[in-house]
C-alpha cells in the first residue's frame, strides 16, 4: 500500500526545548490513522510540520511524495485540515468562514455543506464572536468535510463536541474511509480511536513509542483473566507468560501474554472450569503503559487489570 504520509527521524526544537525528537509516522492511503499522545507530546507540532507551517530541523517528511515545506500550496489542494484550537474572525459569521476556507482550499460542495450544517446543528448566521468552542470546531469541521480532499488532517477535532455530534463525527469518518480517503486523527479520546482507527501511533515526548494496528498492539500487552475451577490447577503459576497470579476461594486472577493464551487455556481445560472472564487489552492500557513513567513499564499489565474497568463493558 502506498504511503500518504511518511515521516522519519523528525526533529523540531523551539529555542532550547526539543518538541520533536526523532519522530516517525507512516500513514497508508485509505486508512484512518490514530495519532495519540499526552498533552505537549508533539502531536500538533508534527501536524504543523506536515502542513509546512513549521520547518523541520532534521529528519525527512513526505506528504503525497512531496515536500510539505517546498510544495505546500500544491499539496494543500489535496488535503483538508481542522486545527486543534480553532480561532475565527470575530466579525464574520460561521457560514462566511466556512465558505472562505472552502473556497481557498479549492471549492466545496454546497449540498454537502447544507447537509453537514444540519447534521452538526450549526447556525451559520451567528457571528464567530458568539460561538462556543464546540461551535467554532464545527465550523472548521464542516469546511473540511464538505471539501473533496484526499487526506483529512484532524487535530483533536471532537474535544469540544457533545456526545451526539461526536457520534455524527464518527459516522462521517467511517463514510470517508468507505470512500477510500485517508484520515490522520489526533486524539485523546481512546474510545474514539478504538472505534475509528485502523492503525494508531502513540507518541511521547516527541518520539514514537508504538505504532501498528490495534491487533498488533494488543499483542504487546496482556489479557486479564478471572477463572473459577472445580479443582486446583497445578503448574499454572509456572507456565511461561502467566503473570501476577492471585487466588482467593477458588477464584484465580492473572494476566497472560497474548501469545501464551493457547497454552493457558489448554492447562485450564482439565480442571473443570466453572466460570471464565477474559478481557482483552485496550488502548487505555497501551496508553497507561506508555504515558506512565518508567515504573509503569514493569507493572503495566497489572495496572491495566486492576485499575481500568472500561474494557469489560466494551468487549
Amino acid at each position, binding site marked *: 500500500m502506498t504511503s500518504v504520509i511518511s515521516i522519519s527521524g523528525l526533529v523540531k526544537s523551539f529555542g532550547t526545548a526539543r518538541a520533536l525528537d526523532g519522530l516517525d509516522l507512516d500513514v497508508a492511503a485509505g486508512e484512518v490513522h490514530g495519532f495519540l499522545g499526552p498533552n505537549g507530546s508533539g502531536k500538533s507540532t508534527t501536524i*504543523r510540520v506536515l*502542513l*509546512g*507551517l*513549521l*520547518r523541520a530541523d532534521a529528519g525527512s517528511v513526505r506528504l503525497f511524495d512531496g515536500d510539505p515545506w517546498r510544495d*505546500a*500550496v*500544491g499539496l*494543500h*489542494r489535496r*488535503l483538508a*485540515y481542522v*486545527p486543534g*484550537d*480553532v*480561532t*475565527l*474572525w*470575530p*466579525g*464574520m*459569521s460561521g*457560514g*462566511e*468562514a*466556512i*465558505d*472562505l*476556507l472552502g*473556497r*481557498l*482550499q*479549492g471549492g466545496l460542495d454546497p449540498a454537502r455543506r447544507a447537509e453537514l450544517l444540519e447534521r452538526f446543528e450549526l447556525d*451559520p*448566521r*451567528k*457571528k464567530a*464572536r*458568539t460561538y462556543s468552542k464546540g461551535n467554532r470546531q464545527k465550523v*472548521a469541521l464542516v469546511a473540511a468535510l464538505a471539501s473533496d480532499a484526499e487526506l483529512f*488532517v484532524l487535530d483533536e477535532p471532537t474535544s469540544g463536541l457533545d456526545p451526539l455530534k461526536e457520534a455524527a463525527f464518527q459516522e462521517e469518518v467511517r463514510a470517508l474511509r468507505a470512500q477510500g480517503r485517508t484520515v490522520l486523527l489526533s486524539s485523546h479520546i481512546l474510545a474514539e480511536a478504538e472505534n475509528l482507527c485502523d492503525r494508531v501511533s502513540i507518541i511521547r515526548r516527541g518520539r514514537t513509542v508504538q505504532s501498528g494496528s490495534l491487533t498488533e498492539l494488543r499483542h504487546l500487552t496482556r489479557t486479564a483473566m478471572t477463572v473459577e475451577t472445580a479443582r486446583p490447577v497445578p503448574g499454572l503459576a509456572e507456565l511461561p507468560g502467566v503473570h501476577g497470579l492471585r487466588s482467593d476461594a477458588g477464584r484465580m486472577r492473572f494476566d497472560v501474554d497474548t501469545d501464551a493464551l493457547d497454552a493457558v487455556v489448554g492447562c485450564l481445560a482439565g480442571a473443570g472450569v466453572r466460570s471464565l472472564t477474559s478481557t482483552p487489552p485496550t488502548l487505555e492500557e497501551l496508553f497507561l503503559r506508555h504515558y506512565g513513567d518508567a515504573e509503569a513499564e514493569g507493572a503495566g499489565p497489572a495496572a491495566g487489570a486492576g485499575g481500568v474497568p472500561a474494557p469489560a463493558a466494551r468487549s
Partner: protein
Amino acid sequence: MSGGPSVAGTGTLIRAALRRDRWRLPLWIAGGAALVATQSVSSQALYDSPQDLAAYEASVGSNAASIALAGPPVGLDTVAGAVAFEISSFVILVAALMAMFTTGRHTRGDEEAGRTELLRATRVGRHAPLLAAVAVSALACAAMVPAVAAAGVGTGLPAGGSFLLGASVGAGALVFTGITAVVAQVTASARAVYGMVGGALGIAFVLRAVGDVEGSWVSWTSPIGWAQATHPWSDDRWSPILLCLLVTVGLLAAAGALLDRRDLGSGLLAARPGRASAPPSLASSLGLAVRLHRGALLGWAVALGLLGLVYGGLAGSVETLFADNPEARAFLPDSGSLVDAYLATTLSINALLAGAYAVSAVLRARAEESVGRAEPVLATATSRAAWLAGHGVVALAGASLVLLVAGAAIGAVRAVDTGDGGEFSRLLSASTAYLPAVWVLAGAAVALFGLLPRSASALAWGAVAYVAVVTMFAASLDWPGWVDDASPLAWTPLAPVEEWSAGALAGLTALAGLLLAAGVTGFRRRDLVPG
C-alpha cells in the same frame, strides 16, 4: 463598584497586568517625558532673547493655525509658557492613548480573548478585572506626573509649573481611562473600543481647537481643554485637575453599573446576525484582507479627510505666521510663500498619519498570525506570499488613498477659498510627492514582520515615532545629520514648496520595494510564530 467578594483577586490581577505591561508602560511614559524635554531644549535655544520671545508671542499667539494645533495662547511671554503652549496637546494625546490602550487591553481585550472567563471561574470577583485594569491605567497616568515634571525641571524650567504640567497630562489621561472603561462595557470587540475611544479623542481635540481659536467656552466641552486650562507657568490653576478627577470618578461608577447589566463576553449593543454564506468577493486572500481592513480604512479615510478640511480652512490665516520671527521659521521650509510653507507642513503631517495607518494595517497580518487565524488559511491552497500580499496591498493602497483624500480635502477648501480651481489639482499632485515615504514605512513594517515577527509591532511603531519626532524637531535641534537622514521624509521634496524630484522619489520607491521583498522572503522562510 461595591467592596467585598465582587472585587476579590484585584490585587493579584493588578500585579499580573503590571508584569505584562512592564515594558510597554515605561515606554509610553518615557515617550511623553521625552517630548517635553525635547520641546524645552528646542524652545530655549530658539527664543533665547526677549526680542525673539516678543516676536514669537506676537506672531504665534494670534495665529489660528498654531492655536488649533497646540492650545490656548497664554503665558507666551516666558519660554516656559511657550513650551507648555507648543507641546502640551501632544503629550496629553500620547498619555490619553496610553490610558486607552492600557484600559482596553485589560478589560475588553482580555474578555474577547477568553482570559477573563478563565479568571472569573476562579475566585476572582465580578468587578475585579475592571477595577484592576482601571487601577493599572491610573497608576500609569499618575506616573506621567513625576516623569513630565522631571523632564521640565531637568531641562531648566521652573519646578512649580513643571509639576502642574505633569499633573495636567496625568489628569487628562485619567479621563480617557474612564471613557475607555465605559466604552469597553458597551461594545463586544476590543477593536471597536479603540475605534470609538480614538474617535472620542479626535472629537475632544477638534472641540478644544475650535474653542481655543475662538477663545470661547467650547474648549470646556473637551477633556483635553480641561487639561490645558491649568495654564502651567502662567496662571497656575489647579481647579481643572479637580474637574478631571470628578468626571473620572463619575465615568468609573457608570462603567461599574454597566458591567452589572451585561453578561460576560457580550456588550450592551447586541450583535446582529450575519450572512449565512459568504459574498462572492470573499474567495481569495486579497478578498479576506479587504474584508478585515475595510472598517478601519474607512475610519482613517474619513478622519484624514476631515483633518484636511480643517487644515485647508486654516491656511488663509497663515499669512501673518512667523512674520517677525525668522528663527521660528526654522520649523517651516524657508522658501516660497508662507502659505505654501504651511501647506507643505500639513502635507507632511498627513504623510506621517498615512504612514501610521500603513503600519497598523501591516501589523494586522502579525495579529492574524499570533492569534492563530493565519494557520487555517495557510493550510489551504494559499501561499504565504499571497496571504501576505493581501494585507500588503491593502496597507499600501489604503495608505495612499488616505493620504490623497487628505490632500484632496485641503485642495478643495483652498480652491473654494481662493476661487482658483487649479489649487485642487496642484495640492493633490503635491500630495503624491509624499507617497514614496509612506510606502517606505509600510515596507519597513513588512520587512520587520517577515524577519523579526516577535518584535515587529514594537519596532514598526518605533519607526513611526522616530519619523514623527525627527519631522517635528529636526529643523530646530542640532542633531547629527544621519539622525535626520534616516527618516524617509527627509528625502521627500517638501511639495508644494520644493520641486517634485523624480530621483529622490524613485530612490524611496525602490527602497520600499526592497523592504517589501525582504519581508516576503523572510516570511516564506520562517516558522509561523504564535503570540
